[in-house]
């Protein structure tokens, strides 16, 4: 079926948006086979965003695990602090090529919002970012960053006042201004062709990592591990490895206070198949299809759904999806900081313990590749409160 990954994906949107999605799909098809488009994008990725990012052999973490070698893909070193910029530069350039001058985006923690505001400033596009009221309060600094970059920040007060509602509000804006506006969605979610476009702009992570690891190790990794909220960093690093069926792909969802507590954001581990935000995938919902509130220590994973390609990789058993609780994420956060001098964002911190565990399982001679999708600067205040550390100590 058109726009589907197995039985997942599709285009469940109001009719008003259908022409925009058709337009986007045909323009993207045209551009994706246009060398000059990719050359222009690669120019910005290289000179502005900081690609290629290093592949770092985490010696201390490897010793700590006492098994397979652990390599870390350093997306945390990118401009604006996370992998999000790969996608926003790509889509902002796409917006320009479509002749549109206005961009809207949603944001949870503010990382995608900041990355969108940045790309729009670079390329001279008008930018409005929707952010849930609760998130805007929790991430005041990112609100300030977006404003400093010239973006308008629209605080969303409807529903649960978080990421899900910011997407709802961005979709309402798009329905109203579709003829002049492009919606830069921040993850591999939404109606077709968004999951494909975002994956294509993020797959540079996996392509680079594959080349880098082949260069230093002369073979592919045994396992690739990444955190999964909507799933864009995971899809980006997984995709070039999907065809190599001997490579294990492991996604780590946000387990919050545990799946049984009901307070989590693990859509595959604790949800069921449904339709929201234009796609058929896994969602956290009740028996009548009402979407239920999520919880995660990390705002970037605090979303009640997951990209349809992940749902497909899960159902076809190509990838495995596990979860880490808030507590485990905080342990991973401290561990990577103390052993490697790398303070991760709370999102990829969810994947750290799983990387250690997998390295132990694989034993010496094995290779684990961990995607470090973002840096922890944005989380300092939050973690300080959680760990009850006073700055003077």
């Amino acid at each position, binding site marked *: 079926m058109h726009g589907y990954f197995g039985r997942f994906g599709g285009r469940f949107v109001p*009719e008003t948006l259908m022409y925009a999605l058709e337009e986007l799909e045909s323009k993207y098809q045209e551009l994706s086979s246009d060398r000059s488009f990719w050359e222009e994008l690669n120019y910005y990725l290289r000179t502005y965003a900081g690609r290629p990012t290093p592949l770092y052999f985490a010696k201390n973490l490897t010793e700590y695990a006492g098994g397979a070698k652990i390599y870390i893909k350093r997306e945390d070193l990118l401009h604006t602090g996370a992998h999000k910029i790969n996608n926003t530069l790509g889509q902002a350039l796409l917006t320009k090529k479509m002749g549109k001058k206005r961009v809207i985006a949603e944001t949870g923690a503010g990382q995608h919002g900041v990355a969108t505001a940045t790309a729009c400033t670079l390329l001279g596009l008008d930018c409005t970012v929707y952010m849930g009221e609760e998130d805007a309060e929790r991430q005041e600094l990112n609100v300030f960053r977006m404003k400093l970059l010239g973006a308008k920040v629209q605080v969303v007060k409807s529903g649960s006042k978080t990421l899900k*509602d910011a997407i709802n509000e961005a979709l309402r804006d798009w329905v109203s201004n579709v003829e002049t506006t492009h919606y830069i969605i921040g993850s591999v979610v939404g109606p077709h062709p968004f999951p494909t476009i975002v994956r294509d702009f993020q797959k540079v992570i996996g392509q680079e990592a594959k080349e880098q690891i082949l260069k230093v190790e002369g073979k592919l990794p045994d396992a690739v591990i990444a955190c999964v909220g909507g799933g864009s960093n995971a899809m980006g690093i997984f995709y070039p490895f999907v065809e190599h069926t001997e490579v294990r792909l492991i996604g780590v969802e946000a387990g919050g206070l545990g799946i049984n507590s009901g307070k989590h954001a693990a859509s595959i581990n604790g949800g069921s198949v449904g339709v929201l935000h234009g796609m058929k995938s896994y969602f956290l919902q009740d028996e009548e299809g009402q979407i239920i509130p999520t919880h995660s220590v990390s705002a970037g994973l605090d979303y009640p759904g997951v990209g349809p390609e992940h749902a497909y990789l899960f159902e076809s058993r190509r990838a495995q999806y596990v979860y880490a609780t808030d507590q485990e994420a905080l342990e991973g956060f401290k561990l990577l900081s103390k052993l490697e001098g790398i303070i991760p964002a709370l999102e990829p911190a969810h994947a750290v313990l799983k990387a250690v565990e997998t390295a132990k399982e694989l034993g010496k001679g094995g290779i684990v590749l961990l995607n470090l999708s973002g840096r922890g600067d944005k989380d300092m205040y939050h973690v300080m409160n959680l760990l009850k550390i006073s700055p003077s100590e």
Partner: protein
Amino acid sequence: MGRERIVEKFSRGEKVLVCYLMAGYPDYETSLEAFRTVLKAGADFLEIGFPFSDPVADGTTIQRAHEEALKRGTKLKHVLRISSTLREDFPDTPFFLMTYYNPVFKIGVEKFCELVRDSGIDGLIVPDLPPEESWELKSYTQKYGLSLVLLASPTSSERRLKLICKHTDDMTYFVSITGTTGAREKLPIERLRADLQRYRKSCDKPVVVGFGISNGEQAKVIGDFSDGVVVGSALVKLAGERKFHELSQKVQELKSSLKLCLKP
């Protein structure tokens, strides 16, 4: 019975007034009373809203109704109870259930269609279900004799209008504006008139226009070049404020304006 009710209404050649209200808003009893009020005041078709947690096609007024109805614990069984209760007193009025696709999908497409039909509902309107994605639901609306009404929009191309026409049952719901539901003082009437002309060239099924319409004047102008109008937010607002008298007057105002429309 069923879809014949819809066909029968259009066959009279009068412009139809479609009235939308949310089940369970502001509470179950008040919403039941509000539905009765609009039916008594002359609604030709009734749209019963089944609340959803993420109503992306709706503006502020109806969003609040979704939220409030869910907070009050509104479930499918309440919506069905409203419909079967009203059906006893209003045997000839077509009833539509309007909701988003996820509740239908999660409850189970077949089970949903069967329950809905048994409660006296004649058709479904699902604003996030374009024709390309409607096949699964359509196979069961057909099985249970329900009408599945698709939406068209000012941004629909000729190709899309033909596609919608082919797959919609009994009528098309034409969205007046690129935007969400909610009363608007000014509607782009000239663009809409041209859009409807485009529609008529591609489709001979009846067409009702909705989104943004809140008064008799707008209903009269739009009724002149369509087969009827849908009014939602303006009624939902009055129901939410428990203003039954004003609700009844509003429906009568809309109804009498439509009577002044040009005959096809």
